[in-house]
């Protein structure tokens, strides 16, 4: 895998266009998708040993999206890298396809479905354990949400993964500091997160999740030590790249008008700021 920052930047802009395009006609979790877009683009272009033609290769690396609601970022990345046809994204929320608000294994590249939070760290542990027994070099990368860390099953899994010395397991926390309509620290404070992970016995790193060079430096330095799993806290920004919805508690799940999507796409490219009129979904 060759790292090329320019390529990452180009692809990440197109992935964000896809996310915005899926944020209408039923909508999607736009903000959370934008926060992990750069992460997924970096991982699939520059880190993971998996290509559209190696999806059945037992030696491929595995990525699991445990915070499944950011799947537009995953499918956008898959479309740009040839895992799926770009046109297929237009099937978003069409029952005749499998492209909806959470990942489905029927879409090439999806290794395991998700939706309910707090599941895929333990599923990833099973895969990592099997891979170790198979004596393969594959790595298992699990993307967790920061809000997802509220779930007890995550901390159960953190303890067991440490006990099993799963050093081929990497958890990456998309630390966008929001969960649904509130800031994480105002609801269930998570910090100091790195200290918590260290106390659980994991190798711990922290990185700017939107800085490709920093991501590359961080991921290239892994594993940080043998015999322990690794967690990377990627500090990100919800809604990153689209200032009108960036870090706004009320822009969590977004179902924009077509006109708003056009304006936001302009905004993504550095043009005029959008005027948003569509209602927001507030759950809290």
């Amino acid at each position: 895998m060759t790292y090329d920052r320019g390529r990452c930047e180009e692809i990440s802009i197109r992935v964000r266009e896809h996310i915005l395009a899926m944020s209408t006609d039923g909508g999607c979790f736009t903000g959370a998708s934008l926060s992990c877009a750069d992460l997924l683009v970096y991982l699939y272009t520059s880190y993971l040993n998996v290509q559209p033609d190696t999806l059945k290769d037992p030696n491929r690396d595995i990525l699991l999206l445990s915070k499944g609601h950011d799947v537009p970022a995953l499918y956008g990345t898959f479309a740009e890298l040839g895992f799926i046809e770009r046109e297929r994204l237009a099937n978003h929320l069409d029952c005749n396809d499998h492209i909806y608000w959470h990942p489905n294994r029927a879409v090439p590249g999806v290794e395991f479905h998700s939706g309910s939070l707090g599941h895929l760290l333990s599923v990833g542990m099973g895969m990592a354990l099997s891979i170790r027994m198979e004596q393969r070099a594959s790595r298992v990368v699990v993307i967790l949400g920061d809000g997802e860390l509220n779930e007890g099953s995550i901390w159960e899994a953190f303890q067991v993964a440490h006990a099993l010395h799963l050093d081929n397991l990497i958890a990456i926390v998309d630390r966008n500091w929001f969960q649904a309509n509130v800031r994480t620290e105002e609801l269930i404070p998570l910090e100091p997160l790195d200290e918590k992970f260290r106390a659980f016995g994991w190798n711990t790193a922290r990185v700017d999740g939107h800085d490709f060079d920093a991501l590359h430096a961080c991921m290239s330095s892994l594993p940080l030590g043998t015999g322990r799993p690794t967690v990377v806290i990627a500090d990100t920004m919800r809604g990153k790249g689209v200032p009108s919805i960036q870090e706004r508690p009320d822009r969590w799940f977004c179902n924009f008008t077509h006109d708003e999507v056009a304006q936001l796409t302009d905004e993504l490219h550095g043009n005029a700021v959008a005027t948003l009129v569509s209602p927001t979904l507030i759950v809290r």
Partner: protein
Amino acid sequence: MNRYELLLRDRCAIDPRVMVLTAENRGHMRNVPQYLGDRFVDVGIAEQTMLGMAAGLASRGRVVIVHALAAFLTLRAFEFIRDDVAIPNLPVIMVGMVPGILSDGNGPTHQAIDDVGLMRGLPNVGVFAPADEEEFVEGMAELLDNPRPCYVRYVGTPTSYYREERTTLHRGVVVCDERECCPEVALLTYGAMLPHALLAAQKLEQQGVSVRLIHMPMLAPLDEAIIVEALNDATMTVIVEDHLIRSGLYSAVCEIAVRHRIAAAIHPIGLMTWFPAGRLPQVLRVTGLDADSIASRIRTLLNNESAPERPTSDEIPA
């Protein structure tokens, strides 16, 4: 080594796919870790993580047997079973320890008396309720031959309660049927209740009541044919189960009767709510699940078809 330990040891030796996981529950297989090496994993008191891991292992082509107390397996980890095993239909065999009445002294938190209902409600998941160790071990061998998601109510009683040739896991078994046609009572049961139902059937026969006793080791998928035949043949069908009567075998039999438009007298002898904790023989008596109570209840039902049913609300005190 007990028969189950021998099965695990031998299967792991010949089938590299098999993995054995437990959530700190290894009383019935204490001797296997030394033979299984890294194929045996004790995750500690972490049922959810165990089920997620089992799914991850199964997704790599492994066949995984997990063990935990039945109540914690089916309740604490329920969503992990549903999402990570049932939805992708992965070959994870889930063995629940001390199910139903066997929980005796633990109290209501540990009583898996809704487990059959929960598990049979899940698409893709089988439910196996053996009556004794022999049936358990043979059923596990069959599940390992054809791996699929299945919940197993563990019963390790060394006595074998019936001698007929053990058939496939999908079939119900007629354990005794003196008249062979049109008995007064068709008695359906499963798991740890079989010996008590068998004793009750013998008492009834001695008193001149003809009984066809049917053991249903597989509660999902169910052997519908044997149930339909019993409903049609018998004057009365009675279901004995150490499970809540709603959602267990009684419910399943009623569903079948309705679907086949059979107007039959169907009576439950089961649990209405959590049972008082105590030693097993007393628990059986106070819940009406010992042989004497079962036989007596059936005689009452036969003598007076219009006798008021036992209350079926949730209001019965434990």
